[in-house]
């Protein structure tokens, strides 16, 4: 079970799309849905990139290259499980039926955003149809939270699991250490999904840690670690399925290292050409997860030109329509600055809110400025 950097990651789909002796656990419908979701992630990315470049939203994070991690993992879990995502995981939400327009409301930070425009773009929060925990910027804090949520399932005797996703950089965080340690001791039903995409902004994975890969870190906590090809939807599906089954059986947590590559910049504020070696980028371009999955679907006889055209159109039109709707939706009202700080509005916040409205009446409203995010 234990794997190291030197070990080859677990893989199901070969470069040519064949799966050899591997069993495919997903139905045809599910397989197509995986593909649809990957294309939707790409479409969402493209549209957001354009929106950002034209100054209509402030920020986005590219997912090119890491689509299979999100989608393969999501396909292995149930809607009753609890997702603790990072900012590069919204494919998981899309897979389980969150509507693009709900995400777009967040990208525009408008009045219909579930977070009422309080968070930066890509910091989603959903409770339906899956519990997709409110994404936080500080790296690593959500790991112990996922362990706590898992322990709650355990205490109530429910067989749900928590999945928490984070990056190679995230393994250096404090939350990684306490979460893996507590989960190991508690045998909590949690899956730690480390997406090793090669970079933490400009810090390469080799400078992030001197360990022999990331899966091996589980040993420090008595948590089994496995290394998986993160560009392979079916390998991801199988690894997460097995981890989920272990967890549901009460056998505790698993650490999964998904080996993948961030093909774009860290975010719309980043210029990766300053630090990413072009040769390596080219190598990884050949391992594109969407291409690989397409080859597999072809071999399975599930792919056709018309399917591709339909799914692409569906995705692009869906996302564009979502963007249009979100952009047309107004900004949250001034009062949303003051609500949700506590369950009940305390007197001092009421007073501050009233003063803000009063000032706006007397002296006009504040200026929005341009405020582009530099990172």
């Amino acid at each position, binding site marked *: 079970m234990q794997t190291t950097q030197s070990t080859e990651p677990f893989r199901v789909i070969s470069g040519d799309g064949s799966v050899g002796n591997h069993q495919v656990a997903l139905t045809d419908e599910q397989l197509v849905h995986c593909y649809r979701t990957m294309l939707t992630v790409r479409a969402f990315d493209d549209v957001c990139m354009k929106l950002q470049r034209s100054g209509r939203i402030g920020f986005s994070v590219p997912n090119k290259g890491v689509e299979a991690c999100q989608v393969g993992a999501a396909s292995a879990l149930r809607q009753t499980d*609890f997702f*603790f995502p990072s900012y590069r995981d919204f494919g998981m939400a899309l897979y389980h039926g969150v509507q693009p327009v709900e995400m777009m409301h967040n990208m525009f930070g408008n009045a219909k*955003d*579930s*977070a*009422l425009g*309080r*968070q930066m773009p890509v*910091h989603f*929060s*959903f*409770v339906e149809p899956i519990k997709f*925990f*409110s994404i*936080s910027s*500080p790296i690593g*804090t959500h*790991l*112990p*939270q*996922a*362990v*706590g*949520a*898992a*322990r*709650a*399932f355990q*205490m*109530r005797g429910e067989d749900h699991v*928590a999945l928490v996703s984070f990056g190679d950089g995230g393994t250096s965080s*404090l*939350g990684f*250490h*306490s*979460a893996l*340690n*507590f989960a190991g*001791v508690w045998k909590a039903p949690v899956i730690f999904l480390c997406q090793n995409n090669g970079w933490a902004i400009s810090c390469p994975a080799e400078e992030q840690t001197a360990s022999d890969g990331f899966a091996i870190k589980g040993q420090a906590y008595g948590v089994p670690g496995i290394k998986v090809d993160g560009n392979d939807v079916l390998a991801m599906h199988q690894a997460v399925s097995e981890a989920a089954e272990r967890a549901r059986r009460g056998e505790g947590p698993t650490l999964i290292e998904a080996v993948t590559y961030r093909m774009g910049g860290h975010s719309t504020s980043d210029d990766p050409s300053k630090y990413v070696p072009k040769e390596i980028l080219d190598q990884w371009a050949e391992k594109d997860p969407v291409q690989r999955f397409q080859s597999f679907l072809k071999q399975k006889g599930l792919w056709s030109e018309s399917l591709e055209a339909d799914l692409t159109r569906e995705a692009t039109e869906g996302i564009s329509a979502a963007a249009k709707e979100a952009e047309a939706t107004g900004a949250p009202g001034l009062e949303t600055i003051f609500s*949700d*700080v*506590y*369950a009940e509005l*305390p*007197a*001092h*916040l009421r007073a501050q809110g009233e003063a803000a409205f009063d000032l706006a009446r007397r002296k006009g409203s504040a200026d929005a400025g341009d405020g582009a995010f530099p990172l």
Partner: protein
Amino acid sequence: MPTLTLIQAVNDGLKVAMRQDESVLVFGEDVGPKGGVFLATEGLTAEFGKERCFDTPLSEDGIVGTAIGMAANGLRPVCEIQFQDFIFPAFDQIVSEAAKLRYRSGGQYTAPMVIRTPYGGGIRGGLYHSQSGEAYFTHTAGLKVVIPSTPYDAKGLLLASIADPDPVLFMEPKALYRHLKADVPEGHYTVDLSTLRQVREGDDVTVFCYGSMVPVVEKAANKAAEQGIHCQVVDLRTLLPLDEQGVLEAARKTGRVVVVHEAPRFCGYGAEISAIIAENIIEYMEAPIRRVTGFDTPFPNTLEHHYLPDERRVLDAIEEVAKY
């Protein structure tokens, strides 16, 4: 009615909450079989089993971080930080996460939980077993900060905190853990958060205080009374959200204010009390707003009795303000 010490009242409050609500659980370092280093959790593992009261590995980040996840998933965790001085590894989880979860998710996710921790000096604990760090937390919107000073309040405020829908930092004055016994009702009752306690009436000087300083201020007020200076003593007991109107009323009544806390003065909690008064009712003030606090130094050991505000220092400030 049983008479209990403050720490017995805390222990009783935990038991009442756990009996009443299955989702309440208690964890932290050494809170299980040992019952906590101050015995606040004594007997809980025996009564409720180690699923509901248990020891954790030595990580405050882990304790608070997992508590947030439990709270977000239907439990009511009451975790303990062994000494407030050791809460800082959990600072990020408290300030960035617990306090901001409701806001950042538009109310979709919340963290109803209590973090209990003993704070303050008086036990020769030196730099790291004596601190009063309330001001590190009261600047944090989304958090509630509660400090009891009597056995009755300790239990009632703790039960209110456990029932509260928002995260509460519950700081217990360790110097008062075994200070005295007082009547504490059996079973369930609550003391509302964000309410002040009038410790003593008086028309000459208003003294604001909380936690371990309350008995010190009471003694000083008694001495002042012997000189004919009658102090109104107010125990703030919920520091955040504070009953600001109540503070203003109490200050306005005498026009002479002293604020007392153990923590260092600079940017300490007392500064906010002064500032609220200076911002809203300065025209009623007939004297400088005096602060009696710990010094702006780390907490010493051998000389802790010089560091801590005592009756002498409080009385001196009361006299000064009264005469002004």
